[in-house]
């Protein structure tokens, strides 16, 4: 892991008596692509705004490069933000937009011209110098916003749901573009999103947040494969979260049927939550499994079929490329490695998101 660059130290923030962040601690490393992921109102944008200097925390410190910058105004910080709705200066040309930060710093004209060229090339918009922001598409405007930020050579780039306003195809293109930029520039990206797919695609580290608390920090693989609680499991992709009992190490009783698993250390006879990803559920012939169910619903999703299987009072979501017709009886089989055991939620913020949301 690279050197630690930003350290959030027990940050608390409330608006109108409403707690948004509660004693949040987080360290961010050099050249890391870190994503703050969570539903709206989880405090991810507030965290970003505190790092950017647009909000001051009620309690706690922001340490940047070993210096306390908690009360430093945004214009004195060595980081730049890309805003959700681009926030370009509509009365200026693209070149003037990009040059803004450099003009503030009184850089020479030749230097500024060089930088504008370089930045436009970097975001694949050469030749757009004299256009006005209004004449550009959403994706192009967002790239200008990124160019405007990176010409200042910030150590950290903060991105607040920058792709939120773009359509799906463009969003995917921009995701690859951002990864490329991060690798080329070698700067730290702090990215805020509520889109789990975006987070999984781009991040080195994902910070899953809910109700002002960090739920889990980890690589995309860890977050997806080994969620620590029901909230994370549910928020990142579809999942079957089943209340179960840990019989002993490596054996869990799910819906009255004993399954082998690989987890240890949860004690004996303790209630736990089990997470099984829909694609990890194998549908077999009824006689091959101890847990049988009836297919109640089937939807074709392109790559796979999404099936609902009612088994022992729980509706399983199953993703499979092989179709089992509605009303057929199937057996449910899960590889021990794909059963993820979690402790029961200790507080409200760790619970799974209600499906009606």
């Amino acid at each position, binding site marked *: 892991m690279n050197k630690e660059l930003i350290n959030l130290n027990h940050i608390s923030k409330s608006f109108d008596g409403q707690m948004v962040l509660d004693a949040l601690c987080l360290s961010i490393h050099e050249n890391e692509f870190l994503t703050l992921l969570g539903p709206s109102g989880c405090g991810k944008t507030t965290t970003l705004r505190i790092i*950017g*200097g*647009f909000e001051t925390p009620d309690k706690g410190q922001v340490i940047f490069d070993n210096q306390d910058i908690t009360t430093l*105004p*945004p*214009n*004195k910080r060595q980081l*730049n*933000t890309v*805003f*959700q*709705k681009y*926030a*370009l*200066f*509509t*009365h200026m040309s693209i070149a003037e937009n990009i040059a*803004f*930060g450099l003009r*503030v*710093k009184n850089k020479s004209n030749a230097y500024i011209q060089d930088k504008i060229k370089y930045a436009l090339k970097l975001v694949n918009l050469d030749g757009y110098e004299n256009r006005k922001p209004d004449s550009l598409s959403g994706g192009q405007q967002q790239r200008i*916003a990124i160019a*405007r*930020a990176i010409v*200042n050579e910030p150590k950290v780039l903060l991105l607040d749901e920058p792709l939120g306003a773009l359509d799906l195809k463009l969003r995917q293109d921009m995701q690859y573009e951002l990864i490329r930029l991060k690798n080329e520039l070698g700067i730290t990206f702090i990215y805020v999103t509520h889109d789990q797919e975006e987070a999984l695609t781009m991040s080195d580290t994902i910070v899953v947040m809910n109700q002002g608390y960090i739920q889990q920090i980890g690589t995309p693989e860890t977050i997806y494969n080994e969620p620590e609680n029901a909230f994370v499991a549910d928020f990142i992709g579809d999942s079957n979260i089943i209340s179960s009992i840990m019989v002993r190490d490596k054996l869990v009783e799910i819906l009255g049927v004993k399954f082998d698993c690989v987890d240890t250390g949860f004690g004996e006879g303790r209630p736990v939550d089990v997470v099984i990803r829909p694609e990890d559920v194998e549908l077999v012939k009824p006689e091959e499994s101890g847990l049988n169910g009836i297919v109640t619903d089937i939807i074709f999703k392109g790559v796979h079929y999404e099936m609902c299987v009612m088994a022992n009072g729980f509706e399983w979501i199953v993703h499979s490329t092989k179709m089992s017709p509605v009303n057929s009886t199937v057996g449910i089989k899960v590889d021990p490695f794909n059963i993820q055991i979690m402790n029961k939620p200790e507080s409200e913020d760790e619970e799974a998101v209600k499906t009606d949301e």
Partner: protein
Amino acid sequence: MNKKMLSLPYLFWSIAFILIPLGMIFFYGFTDKTGAFTLENILAISQAEHMKALWLSILLSLISTIICLALAYPLGLILTSMEVNQNGFIIVLFILPMWMNFLLRTLAWQTLLEKTGVINGILSFLHLPSLNIINTPYAIVLGMVYNFLPFMVLPIYNSLAKIDRNVINAAKDLGAGNLYILKRIILPLSFPGIVSGITMVFVPALTTFVISTLLGGSKILLIGNVIEQEFTQASNWYLGSGLSIVLMVFIIINMVLSAIFDKDGEGGLL
């Protein structure tokens, strides 16, 4: 067909109350008493007394506009930086006088400013020197600023309120200080509002005759007073119309300028 029918009342309105009166003004302006074509009424503006009234009008309107701008812009900045529920109240405070009749408001100033008026009453009670600005250009400027200030405040406030907070945050983020942001971001982005406000103050100030009559006494003649007198006292509709046309040219110049600077109509009052 139906849609066209809906526009009929407005069409009638604009013909009856805008086009026909305007046509009559032009007719009277370019004819003499015998009905023959003449430029005399237009050229009458070059007479010394008319020129003096016109220049005084332009000067006082300009001063009033500048004062209004100087008062309204900082106010707009303060209002936009405040919480929403509070600035609504202050906006109402500024619009409130507009609910009162224009004449009454100006008459009230007359009473306040009179030599033995309310203000001087208070000043003499406090043993302070009295304020003698009634019947001077100062009183006229005061009346203009008081009456037309809301027309400056509203478009400026609107254009300032339209600026996305994130655009200002972005400028801050890029290292700009408050003064730099004001100069390079806020001022240019609110420019349509400024232009609109200037038009909405300058045009009525240039043409007013009520304020100058009530607060300037009979000694100070503005171009509005000259035109009014031609119509009401001298009954010379030809000269009155001619001078009106000249005044219209100034107003049109102002309108054109504001149209150029406010292409999208962003600074509109509403």
